[in-house]
């Protein structure tokens, strides 16, 4: 898959589902030595923009602070704090590296980061942990939008591409479509990946309907 996977030690693999259990070396590294962590909580004006997503009750909170270079339109600095398990912490740390490497990420590119991109750089996550890492990109988008708002670039603000189904985790219809495309065809499987509706069950009927729609679209009609 990626370079990181090659170096992985033997893992505990479920023979039926192919799901893995242990964390990759990259994940462990970022978990035990988080990069770009915010030390002291900053004064209001220290950073250019800020984004937060999740709630302590639903298990993950990610908060992101950015410094942006207005001339080059790139991210200069990416600081973060995360409440959550190992994969949540490692994926925010990895995202911070992705956003600041090679002179900083272009803002347009930052808006397009997907959870899958982070997963790839981490060398994958244990199957049951994928859902813990899906908030990082959303926190980054929230921060970038905050920057656009502050600098009055209103036209550049991207409201999540499609309808937001769960205001808590900010999971959108597109996220559901992608999850189904990647093989998650039941509500449980989609929840494993996206955390949709964990703190907001009202959206679940809609989500189920969407899953059925995309499942039929991509895998043909259900055999009754």
């Amino acid at each position: 898959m990626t370079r990181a996977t090659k170096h992985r030690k033997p893992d505990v693999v479920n023979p039926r589902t192919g799901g893995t259990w242990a964390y990759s070396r990259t994940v462990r590294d970022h978990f035990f030595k988080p990069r770009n962590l915010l030390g002291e909580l900053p004064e209001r004006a220290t950073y250019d923009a800020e984004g937060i997503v999740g709630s302590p009750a639903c298990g993950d909170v990610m908060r992101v602070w950015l410094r942006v270079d207005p001339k080059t339109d790139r991210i200069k600095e990416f600081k973060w704090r995360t409440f959550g398990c190992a994969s949540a912490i490692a994926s925010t740390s990895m995202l911070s590296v992705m956003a600041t490497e090679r002179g900083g990420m272009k803002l347009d590119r930052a808006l397009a980061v997907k959870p899958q991109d982070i997963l790839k750089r981490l060398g994958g996550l244990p199957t049951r942990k994928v859902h813990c890492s899906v908030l990082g990109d959303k926190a980054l988008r929230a921060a970038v939008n905050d920057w656009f708002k502050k600098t009055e670039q209103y036209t550049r603000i991207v409201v999540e591409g499609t309808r937001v189904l769960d205001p808590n985790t900010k999971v959108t219809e597109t996220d559901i479509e992608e999850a189904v495309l990647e093989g998650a065809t039941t509500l449980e499987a989609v929840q494993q990946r996206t955390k949709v509706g964990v703190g907001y069950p009202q959206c679940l009927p809609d989500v189920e309907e969407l899953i059925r729609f995309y499942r039929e679209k991509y895998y043909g009609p259900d055999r009754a």
Partner: protein
Amino acid sequence: MGPRTVCRKSLLDDVPYTYLVTLVVYDKVITNIPERVARAVPLCYNDATSAMPKRMCYLDYAATTPLNPEVFRAMEPYFAEEFGNPSSLYGLGRRAKLAIEESIKKISDTLNCRPGEIIFTGSATEADNLAVMGAARANRRAGNKIIASAIEHKAVLSACNALRAEGFEIVELPVDKHGLVKIGDLKKYLDKKTILVSVMYANNEIGTVQPIREISEIIRKFRGEPKIKDQGSRTGAVLPFFHSDAVQALQFLDCDVQKLGVDLLTLSGHKVYGPKGVGALYARRGVKISPLNYGGGQQERRRPGTENVPGIVGFGESVRLAKKNRREESARLKKLRDKLEKGIFRNIPRILLTGGKTSRLPNFLNVSILDIEGEALLLYLDEKGIAVSTGSACNSESLEPSHVLTALGLPYEYIHGSIRFTLGHGTTENDIDYVLHELPPLVKKLRSISPVNLNPNERKETSLPKAFVGGQTPHFLRKKKK
């Protein structure tokens, strides 16, 4: 007394774990190995992903316990030499049968019951299933209501859930914030339709010990029976039956079924330094249960299948040893636990004790550390060789947090930071000092990563709806419709 997990430097420290196990399985000649393995495994345990051997401080005895070398010695002949089928009539079979009967004797002595009242199973989960489903299905004509406490083990709750689909009515008996069942509610729920009440003896997450005898008295009063007499068992079959899961309690508490007044009692081997893969159900004479499995005539058809002879032999021996060492081991562990508890509360700010302080197993400590997530702390502790457990949702296959901690009315935010320490034979004062030395800096580090800063004085009740966007309590915290 069992093996101690002091960091002893031995020759075996450098031998890889898998090699040690191979020695046991393929090379029976080295008779000393089992004991050395039992000692060595907790010492030089290496997981698949870390190369360096590290200090092992095992504080998860509620998850499982190492096999006592004495127990292993008792089991040893029954793997290969004495391999007979206990149902066979010739000498080899009779000797296996005899070994099972001796084991039953040891267990029935501990439980103060008749030998014929013990049914061996493949696990405590199976025993729980057999008790709940077996009793429910066999007594379906008499009624369809089952009362189970909200903090029962999943083996009971899942069985109840499956029964719901068969038309049974399941009533959840709520608990207070210390995890004690609300006895007033039990009186309210008991009615003519009730066929089974299930309340666990000691909880496996918070260690709360339920007043089983008191609950028994209420059920007996409802049945119209006289008070519990400590000697001489009852054989009548008046409903409802009373089941209790004593898996965690067996090591530390008196499990005399006459004193407890229970009709069904679940036991497990591997929680009392016995082998895995063996559990037992005490079913009082006269209690009708239908089997889950069908086969030959073993165990009076209540649990057919060739008996796991070495497992049963080991189980019996471990139960005997548990009873023998009960008093001094309880006192020793309570002292260590209290030291750990005091130390943690002194050195770590913003922390809560979950479950009650008083009616609790002597080896249990469950705390919620605010602002950090249990799984993250678990892994940091693992890096230091400390093995503990958490009730956080991140640690479960499902996305839902511990049902026990939820039932206590704890806010979901707190449950995420819950950590369970359970002490056992191998725990020494040294281990406790080690944990008290390593834990506070790790908590500090994880708190510096966390953006959350909860105020423990602000929320006393279940999560405020405003913690959830949409302003509604999430589905797993909402009260189920009666």
